[in-house]
């Protein structure tokens, strides 16, 4: 059996050699010699095909037919290569989708994927669809209104109408206890970001580190067991407030709403579910 297998290898190699080398280059060898050579091939199989003499070909008639078949069926290396690379891409892609990636990139990715999936469902079933998160549409709406030089109150009405019809969705942090879109904060953030973009200055720079006063703000010094004191800030939600607006108030940046949300998870189920009169802990920036 080993002999047959070896002979099969030799035959394969010979066929390759026939293709690669000039015809008639090698001397004719008796069959035994071919097998002996094939034996030596075992130690260095890679070098085999090129070094095999042409004349091994006559060994062919002696070979049982089924033996070479499985070897011939083996895929050519070139095919394997593409196979592997696309499999790797696929695996990496799947791993990425499964969240086996830094958490920072996972959540926005899932948000985008979810938003796209929702949009896909909505395209087929507009009646059954929920409000679609379409930030780009919201942006377009605001940008258009700003370009037209519309007043803040006009934009406020426009956004609220669009949001109530489910045409746009807004960040949960920008929903007031009355269920309206906090357009003022939204616009203030756009203006602040625009200012930062043009002057290279972070929008929160002014507010940072400065004590925030005003209605609803409460600062308490708590003395701890070791004698040191820690300052706690609280804010009581008022009419028209949104988590985003509160974030702007304390940190100068609407995007920091999440800090407040996280610090108040015990009383807030979602950033858009704040109620007038709720007393929120404001973590230090």
């Amino acid at each position, binding site marked *: 059996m080993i002999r047959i297998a070896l002979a099969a290898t030799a035959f394969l190699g010979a066929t390759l050699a026939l293709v690669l080398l000039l015809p008639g280059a090698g001397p004719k060898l008796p069959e035994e010699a071919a097998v002996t050579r094939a034996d030596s091939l075992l130690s260095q199989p890679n070098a085999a095909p090129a070094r095999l003499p042409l004349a091994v070909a006559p060994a062919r008639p002696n070979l049982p037919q089924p033996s070479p078949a499985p070897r011939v069926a083996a895929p050519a290396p070139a095919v394997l290569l593409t*196979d592997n690379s*696309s*499999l790797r891409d696929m*695996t990496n*892609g*799947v791993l990425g*989708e*499964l*969240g086996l990636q830094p958490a920072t990139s996972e*959540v926005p990715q*899932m*948000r985008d*994927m*979810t*938003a*796209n*999936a*929702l949009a*896909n*469902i*909505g*395209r*087929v*079933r*507009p*009646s*059954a*669809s*929920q409000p679609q*998160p379409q930030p780009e549409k919201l942006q377009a709406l605001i940008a258009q209104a700003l370009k037209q030089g519309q007043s803040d109150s006009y934009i406020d009405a426009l956004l609220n109408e669009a949001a109530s019809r489910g045409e746009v969705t807004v960040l949960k942090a920008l929903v007031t206890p009355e269920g309206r879109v906090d357009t003022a904060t939204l616009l203030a953030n756009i203006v602040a970001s625009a200012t930062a973009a043009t002057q290279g200055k972070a929008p929160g720079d002014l507010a940072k580190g400065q004590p925030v006063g005003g209605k609803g703000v409460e600062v308490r010094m708590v003395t701890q067991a070791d004698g040191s004191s820690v300052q706690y800030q609280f804010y009581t939600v008022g009419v028209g407030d949104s988590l985003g607006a509160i974030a702007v108030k304390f940190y100068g940046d609407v995007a920091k709403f999440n800090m407040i949300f996280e610090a108040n998870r015990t009383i807030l189920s979602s950033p858009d579910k704040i109620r007038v009169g709720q007393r929120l802990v404001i973590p230090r920036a």
Partner: protein
Amino acid sequence: MVRMLCRAAAAVLVLLGQPSWAEDVRITADLAAKQIVVNGQTLEIARIQDNAHMLTGEFTKTSRACPPFCIHPISAGAGVETLGEIELIAFLEKSVAQGTGLLIDSRVPEWFAKGTIPGAVNVPFTTLEPTNPYRDEILKALGGVKTATGWDFGAALDLAMFCNGPWCDQSPRAIRNLTEAGYPPEKLRYYRGGMQLWLLLGLSVQTP
């Protein structure tokens, strides 16, 4: 001579008769093609009419590594009906076109973009994982109603899910995640053949 004439005549017939020959590859003996109107858009499902057509590329592979690309059983879960192509087309006509059902391509968007079954919407399996913090939005869009105790899927859509084929885990996984979330299995269907069989049968593919 007569033979040659006959051959020439046959050749001319072949050339002239293209339209009538184009009906050669039917979906079933009684059905050449199917037009389905979904949300005002007409979808046509037919088969490639070239008798010599063969697949090339990705869907001709025989030996993807398992795991992860293992062969799936016929059933994707207790109570979940498994569909073939004819049943899938019927689902498009009876449920999707009527607005009571949705054909869901569970693959990731990159694959969906390469081509999908006409009428399918892309809801990647990853978005139905319990780890997706935004999953509730999708369950709501599918008609689920969040109650004090959990979800009410009584008015939810009938779903037919598919992915790349019998070796693809994505739609069975999506089905598992849906049933675990409380989606009634009788509202779920599994097209096990997936893109692999759909393409192999030369059925229409829609590129979003």
